């Protein structure tokens, strides 16, 4: 095959595209500025919402409101709960269930009338915590209440044992200790394996969509397609030149997104990250990037084929936006805990790459998995390129009105 015409088409299309400010926005501005701001913003707000700590210990501003039901005969427990200063305690009311449902209060705790006496008398008694299951703030408040009472129960058991001259080990005969055996590279890899493949796939496709539309449906709309078709360059070469441009933009967008998001995360959380035993394996990262190439060829060719089929840029956009969603869903599925690689999944595009990247980044190099995924994705990429070429040769598609 003569590569010169492909190179001529590639150079021209790239130059043409890079003179379009909309392309610059989609290739550079979105991945380097918009995406990191959105991701960091989401992390920041999620973190803020999860903290739930009172901003002021005197006024209890920001602390979750908890209703105290009963507790009149148990001044010690109530005083301990107040001393904690984690909850904004409200006096009891009979419509506490409505108040929890309407999020006026986050939870209610019912302390039996003779609770302190029952505990001292070693009689069985119970604390009841009322929550709104499924409502995150209510669940979090309930957990804090449960932690408080659990701690208090342990303290009481310890005191009772001491009073009877019995050893503390009677209540806690053994301790449970957890130790991480994974290397810092594996820890980082397991964390990155959940985020990175998703980000790479989303950005690969997001980067491919605008140029693919511009070089196909956009060209139809501007009337330059017929000019191009009157040149002696074989149509297959014209398509390959266009696919290569979309591929270049797609990979560049993904690379810029990874770099800028990584940098933003490091800068924004440098203190917290410094405490974590993180160490990135460059070989695993390189492996994941290489595995992205057939996927990017596949996505670029599909985007070109869809763009060619569309009558206008608007129609192409209508087809390609759902495709972005369709590609992101398998990437999200792969990030879910418990979803692991198997040979059946090796033949599902996008999901296979996501699962393999997750493995590679976690430091597990199974060459059988690598070969199966690379082979199947190369096959799909070849099919997608062939489909784009075949569509470019069909006049019913090129002159579709």
């Amino acid at each position, binding site marked *: 095959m003569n590569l010169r*015409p492909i190179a*001529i*088409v590639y150079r*021209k299309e790239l*130059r*043409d595209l890079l*003179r*379009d400010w909309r392309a610059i926005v989609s290739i550079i501005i979105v991945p380097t500025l918009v995406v990191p701001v959105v991701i960091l913003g989401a992390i920041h707000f999620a973190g803020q919402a999860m903290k739930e700590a009172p901003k002021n210990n005197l006024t209890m501003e920001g602390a979750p409101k908890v209703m105290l039901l009963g507790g009149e005969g148990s001044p010690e427990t109530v005083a301990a709960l107040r001393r904690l200063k984690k909850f904004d305690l409200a006096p009891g009311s009979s419509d506490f269930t409505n108040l929890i449902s309407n999020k006026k209060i986050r939870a209610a705790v019912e302390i039996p009338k003779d609770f302190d006496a029952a505990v001292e008398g070693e009689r069985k008694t119970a604390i009841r915590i009322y929550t709104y299951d499924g409502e995150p703030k209510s669940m979090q408040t309930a957990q804090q209440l449960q932690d408080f009472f659990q701690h208090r129960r342990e303290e009481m058991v310890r005191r009772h044992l001491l009073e009877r001259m019995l050893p503390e080990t009677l209540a806690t005969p053994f301790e449970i200790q957890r130790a991480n055996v994974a290397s810092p590279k594996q820890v980082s890899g397991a964390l990155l394996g959940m985020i990175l493949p998703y980000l790479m796939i989303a950005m690969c496709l997001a980067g491919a969509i605008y140029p693919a539309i511009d070089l196909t449906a956009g060209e139809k709309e*501007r*009337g*330059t397609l*017929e*000019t191009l*078709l*009157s*040149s*002696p*360059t*074989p149509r297959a070469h014209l398509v390959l030149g266009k696919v290569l441009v979309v591929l270049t933009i797609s990979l560049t967008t993904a690379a810029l997104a990874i770099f800028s998001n990584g940098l933003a995360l490091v800068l924004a959380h440098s203190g917290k990250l410094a405490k974590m035993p993180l160490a990135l394996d460059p070989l695993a990262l390189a492996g994941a990037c290489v595995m992205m190439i057939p996927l990017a060829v596949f996505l670029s060719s599909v985007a070109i084929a869809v763009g060619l089929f569309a009558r206008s840029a608007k129609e192409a956009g209508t087809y390609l936006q759902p495709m972005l969603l369709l590609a992101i869903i398998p990437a999200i599925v792969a990030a879910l805990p418990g979803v692991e690689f198997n040979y059946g999944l090796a033949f599902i595009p996008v999901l296979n790459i996501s699962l393999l990247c997750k493995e590679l980044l976690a430091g597990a190099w199974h060459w059988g998995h690598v070969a199966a995924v690379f082979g199947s994705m190369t096959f799909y990429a070849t099919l997608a390129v062939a489909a784009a070429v075949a569509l470019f040769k069909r*006049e019913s598609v090129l*002159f579709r009105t």
Partner: protein
Amino acid sequence: MIEARQLTKVYHDRKRGQIRAVDGVNFRCEPGRIFGLLGVNGAGKTTCLRLLATILRPTSGAASINGFDILTEPEQVRSSIGFLSTATALYGRLTAFEVVEYFGRLHGMDDRILRPRMDALFQTLGMNEFRDRRCDKLSTGMKQKTSIARTLVHDPPVMIFDEPTLGLDVLTARTVLGFIQECGRRGKTVIFSTHAMSEAERLCDSIAIIHGGRILADGTLAQLRKRAGVEHLEDIFIKTVEEQA
């Protein structure tokens, strides 16, 4: 030379059924002569010229351009033609120079041949003043000159013009018509489609009247006058179409 033999293009439309856009068309254009394809909108002119330019594939029939078969040698055919129509727009984000250079390269020209050829073309067409300006910033006349330079850059022996003056102002149209005449004078084979009677009357050495995809009459203007028994081309056209209807 251009030769069309029983050239036919049939489309299948879900609503309208089978459409014979070009129906058994025969004609022959000689080098140094301008052949006009005269017809109303939808007569089949554009489809016919797209078939000759190998942009579309015929359903049946054959044609050759400069000795190359449109079915078996489409790339050689496209190397031999310069195709200009209202649908062949320019790349707005490229300069006039870059557009002409791009098509020169697509025709396989290297710098040694391409640069002097472009210099000569830009000089002849008076394009040096705007050669480095982006095409979307050019006036209609400048764009048309750039399109002409694009079609001529590889010095093709055959020129195909599909309604090249459609939507142009008088001055720009005059430049284009002058350029078509010049191509004929230089010995190129020229085929030119129009629905403007005055243009066909002024430029063409021979004319074919096309209607409903079929050529109803062809010959020199004198032959057409003699056959129809009327003087003006417009009257000849209407009489021919009405007789065949």
